[in-house]
């Protein structure tokens, strides 16, 4: 494998000289849609990215996608559950770099501020062959965008809002044909002193949250350089730091604090041929988490090379290899691990209407190997005329999760004999779109997934230890639609989604939960969201709502958290012009009807809140 890597590094450098024009996302991203035929992929709408500029990725995904985010309070730990899988079953990538913590095996979406990236995509289902580790339930891909030939640009944006929210962001950039610089700096402060009904106190009085303050700052630096007409270098760096008071569960006193410091850097070098792209990538992810005075640090290093070649209109190949190293200096152990991966992707277009993809990955890590992880998919345009199109998508995929450093090495309890968690995923979907006075698009996906060797930490006398104990069947239907049209001078858009997920343990610890048809805890069977947006000239308004169905709080619990629905409202102007300066202005009301709800048991969430956003762009 290493030889292959060296071969790729040295042997394939001299390529044809012509520049190939490709869409920026396709080049710099993982070419997700191109090579993952038959899988459900959705891009986060740019306007949603704008509306959530002073909020976290967790908030954005909770309110606009069918991903259930387990939120431990306002601004607190937010872990994704895609298609009923656990927090560690979703991989998060930033500019192609996997950024999940190697010790925890997951990302806290509450400390990934939306303002730090330019684009986001969500891929649903297992895709271990193409994306690698931890892509069991799905993957979240975050990207920076590079502009060329735009000259000097600068801006300042601020948000002020309820519960002491104050966000300030500065951006400055310069680009010509050769180079592109962009710098972003942000600082967010939230007191989070929202009123809530304290169910932990006799008489359940309303009181203000007093231990959930948050302060976050960061810097993102992007640099791109067209070294030659067909050579490009890209460098991105992201520093993020979050200090939090940990909001206590109702009934307990808040005393914990947490500080997260994250540095991430990625360097890409591209060599474009007439029908090929060679990419070398090097990256580092450095995480530091201090919980009270307990310090846990992890470093990750990545080195990869891949080559994509289009042999004919019908046939494209991508092949590559990656070396990664994780080092953990945790409060109870110090360990490191090396991983080698090789991957191959084939894209085959036998006709105008049919695309097939196949992906393969081979992986070895310190305690084991996964010799063969395949996936297959197809997109078939079943019907097409000049106004409408119907596409069938179907895929078979596999996902895996290597036991985390904590799973294997935590002292006491770490279990070095754990197997990787594995999943098999099959899905079938239809996409329909129609142009016209009222444009319409809709998609329906059915998926069936089995996750085996699911790792659960169990008490072993005085401490806990992980075991491959659970086997889970996840089945569901995802439906989403979008409509848009014009009425007089108004442009309107209406979109929505509904998800049904049945997630049960076939094998589990204890007799009651397994095979009982009981839904896994904190996994809503029903979820829905809808959004209406109306624009007239530069003025826009939106109204969005989302529903989360009931959840049980443990595998066989009689404690049920009721479903809830929340609504947000926004009104804005895309830019009031004063001379050559444009000033966008928007006003948001979140939780419009002041609904009292808990995402997780006894974790208070804020009621109605207001936010005013403005920016100046030069």
């Amino acid at each position, binding site marked *: 494998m290493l030889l292959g890597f060296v071969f790729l590094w040295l042997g394939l450098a001299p390529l044809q000289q012509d520049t190939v024009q490709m869409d920026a996302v396709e080049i710099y991203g993982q070419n997700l849609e191109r090579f993952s035929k038959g899988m459900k992929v959705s891009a986060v709408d740019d306007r949603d990215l704008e509306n959530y500029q002073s909020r976290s990725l967790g908030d954005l995904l909770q309110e606009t996608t069918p991903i259930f985010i387990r939120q431990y309070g306002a601004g607190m730990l937010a872990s994704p559950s895609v298609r009923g899988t656990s927090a560690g079953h979703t991989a998060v990538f930033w500019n192609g770099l996997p950024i999940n913590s190697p010790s925890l095996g997951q990302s806290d979406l509450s400390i990934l501020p939306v303002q730090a990236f330019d684009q986001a995509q969500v891929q649903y289902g297992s895709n271990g062959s193409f994306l690698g580790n931890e892509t069991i339930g799905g993957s979240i891909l975050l990207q920076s965008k590079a502009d060329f030939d735009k000259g000097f640009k600068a801006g300042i944006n601020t948000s002020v809002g309820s519960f002491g929210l104050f966000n300030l962001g500065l951006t400055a950039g310069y680009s010509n044909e050769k180079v592109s610089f962009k710098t972003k700096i942000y600082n967010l402060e939230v007191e989070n002193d929202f009123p809530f009904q304290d169910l932990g*106190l*006799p008489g359940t009085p309303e009181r203000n949250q007093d231990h959930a303050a948050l302060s976050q700052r960061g810097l993102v630096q992007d640099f791109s350089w067209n070294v030659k007409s067909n050579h490009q270098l890209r460098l991105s760096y992201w520093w993020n730091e979050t200090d939090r008071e940990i909001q206590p*569960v109702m*009934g*307990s006193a808040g005393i914990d604090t947490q500080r997260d410091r994250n540095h991430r850097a990625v360097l890409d070098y591209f060599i474009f041929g007439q029908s090929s792209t060679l990419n070398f990538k090097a990256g580092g992810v450095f995480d530091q988490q201090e919980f009270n005075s307990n310090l846990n640090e992890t470093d990750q290093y990545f080195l990869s090379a891949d080559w994509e070649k289009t042999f004919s209109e019908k046939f494209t190949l991508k092949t590559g290899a990656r070396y990664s190293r994780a080092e953990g200096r945790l409060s109870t152990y110090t360990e490191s691990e090396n991983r080698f991966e090789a991957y191959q992707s084939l894209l085959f277009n036998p006709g105008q209407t049919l695309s097939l993809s196949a992906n393969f990955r081979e992986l070895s890590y310190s305690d084991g190997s996964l010799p063969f992880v395949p996936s297959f998919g197809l997109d078939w345009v079943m019907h097409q005329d000049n106004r409408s199109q119907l596409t069938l998508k179907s895929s078979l995929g596999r996902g895996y999760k290597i036991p985390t450093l904590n799973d294997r090495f935590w002292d006491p309890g770490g279990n070095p004999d754990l197997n990787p968690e594995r999943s098999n995923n099959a899905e079938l979907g239809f996409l329909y779109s129609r142009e016209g006075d009222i444009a319409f698009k809709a998609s329906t996906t059915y998926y069936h997934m089995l996750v085996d060797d699911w790792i659960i930490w169990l008490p072993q*006398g005085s401490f806990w230890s992980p075991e491959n104990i659970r086997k889970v069947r996840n089945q569901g239907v995802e439906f989403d639609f979008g409509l848009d049209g014009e009425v007089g001078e108004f442009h309107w858009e209406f979109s929505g989604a509904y998800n049904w997920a049945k997630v049960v343990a076939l094998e589990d*610890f204890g007799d*009651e939960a397994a095979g009982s048809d009981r839904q896994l805890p904190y996994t809503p069977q029903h979820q829905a969201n809808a959004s209406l947006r109306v624009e007239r000239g530069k003025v826009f308004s939106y109204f969005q709502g989302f529903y989360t169905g009931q959840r049980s709080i443990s595998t*066989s*619990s009689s404690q049920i958290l009721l479903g809830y629905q929340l609504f947000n409202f926004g009104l804005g102007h895309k830019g009031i012009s004063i001379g050559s300066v444009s000033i966008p202005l928007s006003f948001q009301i979140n939780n419009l009807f002041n609904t009292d709800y808990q995402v997780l048991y006894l974790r208070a969430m804020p009621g109605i809140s207001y936010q005013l956003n403005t920016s100046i762009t030069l």
Partner: protein
Amino acid sequence: MKLNRLFLLFLAFSVVIVSCDSNDPEEPIGQYETGILIMNEGAFGVNDGEVYHLNQRLDELTQNVFETVNARPYAGLLEDIVWIDDRLYLVANTGKVEIVDPGTFESIGAVIGDLDLPRSTDIAAGKMFISDYGPFDANFATPDSYVAVINNVLGGTVRSKIPTSRKPEDLQAVGDFILVAGAEESKLEVIDALSEQVTQSIDVLGNPREFVFVNQALWLYSTAADEVYFHQINTSNFSIQNTVTLPVASATGRIALGNGTEAYLITSSGFPDYIDGVDRVDIASGTVDTDWIEGSGFYGIGFDRVNRELYLANANGFQGNGDVSVYSDSGQFIEEFEVGRAPSGFFFY
């Protein structure tokens, strides 16, 4: 837990009731003042501790009694249930004590705030005393353990804290004194409830866990790696007048008193085999029946002296609901039923 002690108190209380003037109107027994209360500790970080009620006569199990009656969750990790003077004290190790009417389970008071990791409570000299580990330090040690004092037996705010040895567990009122089972530093401590001072600190063998009454004498149950100890306490001067040492290894500290001088002790081999057992011992004769029951996940134990049945709670790895197995006193399995999360103890009326 001091369920057995409470049982004895209840017996004493019953005698008082029986001996009362027969013209006094007798208070009807409340819905929850009969049968068995099952203590479900709940899961760490979730605060879903609750009480289940089992009416054996009607074979009825009522879930989540506290929330059902009071229309709010218990919102804590339920560490201990203590019955004192016809009040039930529900001690949460997440920092509060809720006080309910045993018959109706309606909330009648609480101690909220200024507690850290409460373990148990008792009353002396008209004051409430709460043993508390105190806050964790950076190494998860608890160097600042204490017994908190509250002026009112119906709760209120903590007025003062009496420093104790590390990790005080059970408390036992004897007259105007409070005895403290000082688990980590192997101490029996005596607090004068009037002066609120520790007046004696006695070194004992093992790690003291719980006070129990056997044959109307007060004993302190204490565990060590290979042995357990029953220290008989002279209640006039609080000296240890007798110690029974039994060869019971890996006792967890959970105990239920059985018939006569018998006791049932949970043991656990720990990692990696993780074999749990129940040893039956006789404190008077010193006999030990090792692994009288064997299994895993044993988290709570109780003995119904009326029906002579052993109740053994299994936490099922804290993943979901636990369950309770019932055995006859000859070790015959009778039945099993599902209860709440992490069942950790029982209270028998």
